[in-house]
C-alpha cells in the first residue's frame, strides 16, 4: 500500500488493534500530520470518522483509513456522512473476523481461550477457538453489500495476486470506497514486549 501511494502524499488514519500496529510498522511515514492514530485512549472506531474530518480539510487529497473489522463496525454509520457530504475516504479493511489484538493476548497468555473475541455467529467453531485455521466458511458481515448499501464503492479480495489491482481501483474510485481484505487471524504483531516487562522479555516469534 505504501509503495503504491507514496507519490500521492496521502493521510493515513487507523483504528485500534493489530491492523493499527502493522500500519505503524510497515507504512513508512515521512511528514508530520499524515498519520492519525488514537494512541493514548486507543479507541476503536476512530479511523473512519477521523479520515472524514481530514478529507473535509483536504478535499483533493488521498485519505486512507486502514481499519480492522471490529474497529470499522463501531462507527460504520459514518459511511453515510462520507457519501452524503462528498468525502471520498478510502477504507482498507484488514478483516480477520476476530478482535485480533485481544486474540493475540489470548493466544500468548491465556492458552488460546477465546473469550468473546470472534466477530461472527456464535455457533461457529471459531467462537470457541476450535476453528480449522482456514477461517470461517461464511464471512460475516458482508461488508461489500453494506458499503454499497451506503452508496460507496466496494470490493472483496482474498488472494495476494488481486491486491495491487484492487488497491489501484480503490485509489482511483471517485467516491468513498471499502476494500475488504481477508487476512488470517493467526497472525500476531511482532515483536512484542508484554505489558510491564522489559526488553529482555521481548517476544520475536
Amino acid at each position, binding site marked *: 500500500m505504501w509503495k503504491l501511494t507514496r507519490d500521492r502524499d496521502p493521510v493515513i488514519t487507523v483504528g485500534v488493534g493489530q491492523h493499527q500496529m502493522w500500519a505503524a510498522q510497515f507504512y513508512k511515514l515521512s*511528514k508530520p500530520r499524515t498519520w492519525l492514530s488514537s494512541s*493514548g485512549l486507543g*479507541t476503536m472506531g476512530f479511523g473512519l*470518522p477521523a*479520515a472524514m474530518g481530514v478529507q473535509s480539510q483536504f478535499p483533493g487529497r488521498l485519505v486512507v483509513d486502514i481499519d480492522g473489522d471490529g474497529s470499522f463496525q463501531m*462507527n460504520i454509520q459514518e459511511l*453515510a456522512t462520507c457519501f452524503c457530504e462528498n468525502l471520498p475516504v478510502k477504507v482498507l479493511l484488514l478483516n480477520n473476523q476476530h478482535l485480533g489484538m485481544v486474540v493475540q493476548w489470548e493466544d500468548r497468555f491465556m492458552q488460546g481461550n477465546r473469550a468473546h473475541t470472534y466477530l461472527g455467529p456464535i455457533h461457529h467453531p471459531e467462537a470457541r477457538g476450535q476453528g480449522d485455521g482456514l477461517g470461517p466458511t461464511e464471512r460475516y458481515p458482508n461488508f461489500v453489500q453494506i458499503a454499497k448499501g451506503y452508496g460507496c464503492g466496494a470490493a472483496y479480495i482474498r488472494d495476494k495476486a488481486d491486491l495491487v489491482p484492487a488497491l489501484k481501483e480503490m485509489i482511483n474510485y471517485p467516491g468513498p470506497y471499502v476494500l475488504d481484505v481477508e487476512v488470517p487471524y493467526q497472525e500476531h504483531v511482532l*515483536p512484542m514486549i508484554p505489558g510491564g516487562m522489559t*526488553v529482555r522479555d521481548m517476544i520475536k516469534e
Partner: protein
Amino acid sequence: MAGREPAPAGGVPICLPESSVPRIEVIAVATVTKPKTKTDLTSGADILVQSLINHGVDTIFAYPGGASMPLHQALTRFSDRLRTILPRHEQGGGFAAQGVARSTGKPGVCMATSGPGATNLVTAIADAKLDSVPLIAITGQVPTRMIGNDAFQETPIVEVCRGITKHHYLVTDVSDVARVVKEAFLIATVGRPGPVLIDVPKDVQLAKTVPNYDVATDLPGFRAENPKAKPEQIRQIAAAIKLSKRPVIYAGGGIISGNASEELRTLAKKTGIPVTMTVMGLGAFPSESDQSLDMLGMHGSVYANYAVEQADLLIALGVRFDDRVTGKVEAFCEHGKIVHVDIDAAELNKNKPAHIPVCSDVKYALTELNKIVEAPEEIAAWVEQCKK
C-alpha cells in the same frame, strides 16, 4: 481553574466600548429613525457562531436536537462562511473534529445536543485529552431554570467531563458567550493542547445582547504563552550531547503538535544521533532515513528497543514515557542519562526521573539548541550497531 459564578439575576449590563458608539446626527425632520448599526441585539446562538468564525473555524461537525436547535438555525445563517457537516453519530462527529485538528493543527469543533447527544461525545473528548488534541466541544443544554430537574434530555455534562477536559464551561448568561469562546480557544491551543467543553443552555442561545467580540479574557493564573527553555538549560543539553557515546533521540506527539519536525531533523543531521519515535510521533522524522530506528515500545522494532536499553543519553522530546513505550519503567533506559523536554511541567519526572528536565515549547528549545549543538565525538560505531 476557578469555577465561574453564575451572573446575578435581573438584567445584563450592556457595555458599549466608546469606539463602537455611532454618532447620530439629529436631522430636522418630522420623524427620526434609528439607523441600523453593528450594535444591534444578537442572540447567544448567533454570537457563538460568529465567534467561531472569528477564530478561524471553517468546518463544524454537528448533530442537532431540541436543546441545540437555535445553534443549528444560527449555523444556517452563516453557512457561507462555516460549513456544517452532519455525522451519523455524535462520536463520529467528535472524531471527525479530531481529524481536522490532528491533520491541520487548528482546533477541531464538534457540536451535539443535550443529554444523550452530549454523552455520546464523551469518548471523543477523553480521546482528545489523552492525545493532547485541541478540540472545542459545544453541547446544547436544557434551559437554565430547568437544570437539576431531571429535565428531558438533560445530563450534567460538565460534571461528567470534568476529569477528561482541559477546561469546561456552563454558560449561564448570554453576555458571557463571546468571552467564553475566546477563552476556550486560548485554553485549547496554548501550552499543551486539549479539549474544552462549552455547555450552552437553550435560553442562553435564544437570549439577546449586544456582542463585544473584543472582550478581555478573564483567566487569572493562565499563562497565555508557551514556556521557554532557559539558556543555561540549552547549554546543559548541548554539553550532554557532546559527551555522550551512545545517544538516542526519543521523539513523540509533542514534536507534531509543536510543529517542530524541521528542528528535529536539523538536530539529527547536525549530531548524527539515531531517532526513534512513539506511535504519536510517527512522521516527525522520515522513516526511510538511515538514522531512523522506527517505532519503539510494546510493538516497536527490536533495534529501537535495544538502542534505548543500551543508550547512555536519552534525549526525550515531546513525549511522556507512556507504559506502552517503557514496559517496566524502572528498566527503561536504566543505564542512560535522561534529557526530557516537554511543554507540560507535570510530565517532567512523572514516570521517569529526568537528569535534565526542561519545561519548554519543544520547537523553541530545539531552535536554540541547534544554534550551539555539536556532534558527539565518536558515535559512528554506535550508530552502526543501532542499525543492526
